[in-house]
């Protein structure tokens, strides 16, 4: 027996299963990052001294990363819109750019980390760096997860477009919701870690 509402909308909630599922997952992610932000605020408020992010961290590099991530969010939503307009070629292009942007973000992040390590800054140095590495590290893991999913839907996963187009569009929407959330987290991380 088939499970209902895998691709069509439920008459009452107006949603298909996966969309409700991803939003619930994102709600729990809000609590996860929320708890980490809470810890950050508390540690900073309780500390006798706390460096400004801009004194130590590389703002230009992080700004570039912000731009890259926001751009990838736009291409993500464009890839979904392309599918909605039945344009598979454009979908491939936009999704490809999204994946590449994600990778660029990670590479830049890698340079940033390497520079910190070179200067002898580690998570154990002080609570500023502990917070910085934890928050950006966890965010980085989320980026990696998103890249894997997006790359799958760009490559082998895109075969579904031929067999079950509606379900495939849904999958892209769901993957997009996750990717935008990762972007959203960064939008808050960037000022609170680097600019304050």
């Amino acid at each position, binding site marked *: *027996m*088939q*499970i*209902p*509402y895998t691709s069509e909308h*439920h008459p009452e*909630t107006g*949603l298909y*299963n*996966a969309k*409700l*599922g991803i939003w*619930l*997952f994102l*709600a*729990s*992610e809000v*609590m*996860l*990052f*929320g*708890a*980490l932000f*809470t*810890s950050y605020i*508390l*540690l900073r408020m*309780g*500390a006798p001294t706390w460096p400004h992010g801009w004194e130590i961290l590389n703002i230009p590099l992080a700004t570039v990363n912000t731009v890259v991530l926001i751009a990838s969010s736009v291409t993500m939503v464009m890839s979904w819109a392309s599918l909605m307009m039945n344009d598979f070629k454009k979908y491939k292009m936009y999704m490809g750019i999204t994946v590449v942007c994600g990778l660029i973000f990670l590479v830049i992040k890698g340079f940033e980390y390497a520079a910190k390590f070179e200067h002898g800054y*580690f*998570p*154990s*140095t*002080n*609570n500023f760096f*502990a917070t910085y*590495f*934890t928050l950006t590290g*966890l965010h980085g893991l989320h980026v990696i997860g998103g890249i894997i999913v997006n790359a799958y839907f760009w490559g082998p996963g895109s075969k579904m477009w031929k067999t079950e187009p509606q379900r495939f569009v849904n999958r892209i929407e769901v993957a997009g919701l996750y990717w935008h959330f990762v972007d959203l987290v960064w939008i808050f991380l960037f000022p609170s870690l680097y600019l304050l």
Partner: protein
Amino acid sequence: MSTSSHSHTADAHIHHDAHHHEQGFWSKYVFSTDHKVIGIQYGVTSLLFLFLGFTLMMIMRWQLAYPGEPFPVIRFVLPIGIIGLLTMFVSGFKPSLGTTVGVLFMAMAALVWYLATGEERMPMGIMAPEYYNSLGAMHGTIMIFLGVVPLGVGAFGNYVMPLQIGAPDMAFPKLNMMSYWIYLVGGIIMVISFFVPGGAANSGWTSYPPLSEIATTGQTWWLVGMVFLITSSLLGSVNFIVTILQLRAKGLSFMKLPFFVWAQLVTSFLLLLAFPPLEAAGILQLLDRVAGTSFFLPSGLVISGEKLMNAGGGTPILWQHLFWFLAHPEVYVLILPAMGIISEIIANNTRKPLWGYKYIVYSALFIGFMSFIVWAHHMYITGMGTTISAFFQTTTMIISVPSIVILTSLAISLYGGSIRYNTAMLFALAFIPMFGIGGLTGLPLGLATSDLHLHDTYYVIGHFHYVVAPGTIFALFAGIYWWFPKLTGRTMNETLGKIHFWGSFVCMNFIFFPMLIQGMAGLSRRLYDGGEQYSHSANVIYLNEVMSIAAWVMAIFQIFFIVNVFLSMKKGKKTTDNHWEATTLEWSATTAPPLAHGNFVTLPTVYHGPYEYSVPGAKKDFTPQNEK
């Protein structure tokens, strides 16, 4: 559990099912995506963990009753080994579920042997103090995170909930399977931690820093295990909520849902939103231990006369906040499914509609909502200021109201019913006063003034065990007796069941009531020698032996349950689809539903409320939800 019998009862339905095809052994019983198989897997695993947690406690209780005397290993290992051997013998050593369980029991006996011997843990057979701490921490962890929650949510929720809402399966079957396997990995990590140098985690189930940060390697394993368990419950809760919101049968509106489903829905939301902060805290503590950060380590910490060389600047109180932000809702994760089970059983066995169904539902929703803003009542003794503690005292008093509403509604439901006293009902009836004691003894702990006196005493242990052990675990037992005919097509033996019930009921009270007395006398709760050294405990210390003996006797009564399960699976009286003449949808499905996707021959349509018993003018004294 339904392996042996489903072939007889389900054959008739198989050829109706167009999608049915033969599955291999592995995909059918092991890596199954069917919610019923996963429910059973959860059930078997969590019962084994409950048993392990119980065993740890039995070892601890020796030390408390007879501090400094060598532990009698043989007296404990032999019975478990014999049960294992007997189980294997009864199932004829053939590759079957029974043999598997037998093997698991033998493994358990070996594990107990390991746990109760060894120079490091039990020098000269006498328990080392660090090891006592380890047992305490792991007893709590295993009972809560690996035993009761997976049984109440993973097992009952998975097996019963989709049937009760008339769904063909869970919304995300593959996710469901992953959730079980991640849980199992988390559990195995916890068990392995007993074997690492320094032994398992020994900083209490709450893992308070700084103690937990300077503890032995076992704590790192504990944290990694917890991350797995949290991930598992996250996947599970997403799945539950989507299933309940999206896959209800036609006509099954929210106010027609059995209360059990409501309980699972609220529970899932609690798991979804309360667990991530603990995951965050777990990651931070893991980094403190592994990467040398100081999130929870204050500056200038001195350990054994030496200054700790860390950056410092952290705060241990932060851990307590993040921990209790989960752990208070967790209490309701334990109790709500239990209340759900009890409601089903009481309505059916009184042959009356549940009194105040709407109040019960609204109360459960209110509990879910409030449980997020009461957590710091676990922290009055951290030196919390009066303003904020007044806030938490107020919310704590408020949250006790809906629990009382539910309990009162259940009690009123009994009034005027012609009650059937079967084993399931006995457990359900015992739940009401037992959970009542648990809840009411909690009120003094919710008020800062009395909590300051009681907080670190046995009173707290007595209080929450009344909630969880004779409360929740009784409800879970009730659920097993209740849904057993659905799983297997056979009923459980009533005589064995009643022996199990009365034995457990009496023993439970002999274990936990003395704790309340000891606590009020001021006996501290984390003492390795049970308080021998303190003069204020002189009048109550004899109770330690009483409690220990009661605990060991209770173990004997559990054997009746284990025997009953296996005996009834093979030899139990065969029964019909609707053994209890119940109204909810799971009883309209086939008995022992075939272990493949699709629970119903045709998906049911619902016309009635969940508890239409003894409706005036109806032909029978029950009206199934799906009958016009």
